[in-house]
């Protein structure tokens, strides 16, 4: 048993950079056909990614906070590939704000993308995935498990994703579709670059392994959860945080 995904089709949201891009690359290296989504994404990403396998990379732009775009994305996968084996709900935003300063717009945008987005995609994809069996991986966060000051809405959205993961795992298990989540800690991407040096220094002190995570650290865990290596694992949240204490 290995991580070979030849012949399988994977859909990764938020795949134009950061963790999603690393996930797409890992799945591609494992032999999968990969459909990449983000709001701003075009064929140029195929050159960055594909190397020897441009025929296995597909791009489909869409805003995953819009339910119609989410459905359209799955319809496009169905039309082109007729199957879906792995769905990685990775697209997400984080807008830090203290409780008194959370705007209605920040709340709406965060919940629409981070929580409603994965739910819409799971709803649209579940029956297609049930045809062949498959694996759904939701990218949550340690903040959704532990909470963090200044991240009330983000934490709520990611805790919601964990609840959705567990419920979907129960409902879809009889159909052969596994549903798990990863909970990254502090990973160096555009998202964390915006937090500034002080937050970074503080976060590093809290990480047992003594370094920030890389997108590849998360991508390897996602590959494991997409592959047959994890065939008997569903409804779980896998922390990928280097032993972070928050």
């Amino acid at each position, binding site marked *: 048993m290995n991580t070979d995904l030849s012949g399988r089709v994977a859909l990764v949201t938020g795949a134009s950079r950061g963790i999603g891009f690393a996930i797409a690359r890992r799945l591609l290296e494992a032999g999968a056909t990969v459909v990449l989504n983000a709001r701003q994404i075009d064929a140029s990403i195929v050159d960055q990614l594909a190397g020897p396998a441009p025929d296995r990379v597909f791009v489909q732009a869409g805003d995953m906070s819009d339910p119609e775009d989410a*459905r359209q994305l*799955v*319809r496009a996968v*169905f039309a082109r590939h*007729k199957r879906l084996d792995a769905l990685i709900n990775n697209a997400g935003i984080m807008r830090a704000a203290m409780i008194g300063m959370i705007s209605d717009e920040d709340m709406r945008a965060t919940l629409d993308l981070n929580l409603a987005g994965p739910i819409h995609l799971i*709803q*649209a994809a579940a*029956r*297609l995935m*049930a*045809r062949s069996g498959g694996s759904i991986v939701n990218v949550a966060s340690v903040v959704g498990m532990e909470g963090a000051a200044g991240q009330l809405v983000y934490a709520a959205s990611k805790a919601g994703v964990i609840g959705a993961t567990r419920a979907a795992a129960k409902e879809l298990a009889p159909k052969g579709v596994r549903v798990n989540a990863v909970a990254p800690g502090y990973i160096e991407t555009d998202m964390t670059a915006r937090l500034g040096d002080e937050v970074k220094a503080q976060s590093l002190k809290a990480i047992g392994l003594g370094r920030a995570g890389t997108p590849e650290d998360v991508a390897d865990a996602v590959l494991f959860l997409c592959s047959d290596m994890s065939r008997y694992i569903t409804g779980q949240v896998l922390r990928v945080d280097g032993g972070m204490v928050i």
Partner: protein
Amino acid sequence: MTLEEKVFAAFKDAFDLEDGIDRASLVYREFPEWNSIGHMTLVAALETQFDAMLEANEILAMSSFDKAVEIMAKYDEH
């Protein structure tokens, strides 16, 4: 196969029906096997039979055999 036969084939598949069953008795929440879980089994069978993906509003509107035929007409290529 006619449209109606194709729809019936999916119903048979989902609910393990006899050929001679009265199709008018196939009503959501009235026919014993056609509960909310059976409904998703039926939708999956229809999608496989017609090689299609149904919209959420169509899934919610599919309340009887006749209604299913009406909805599936859109996906019937032959």
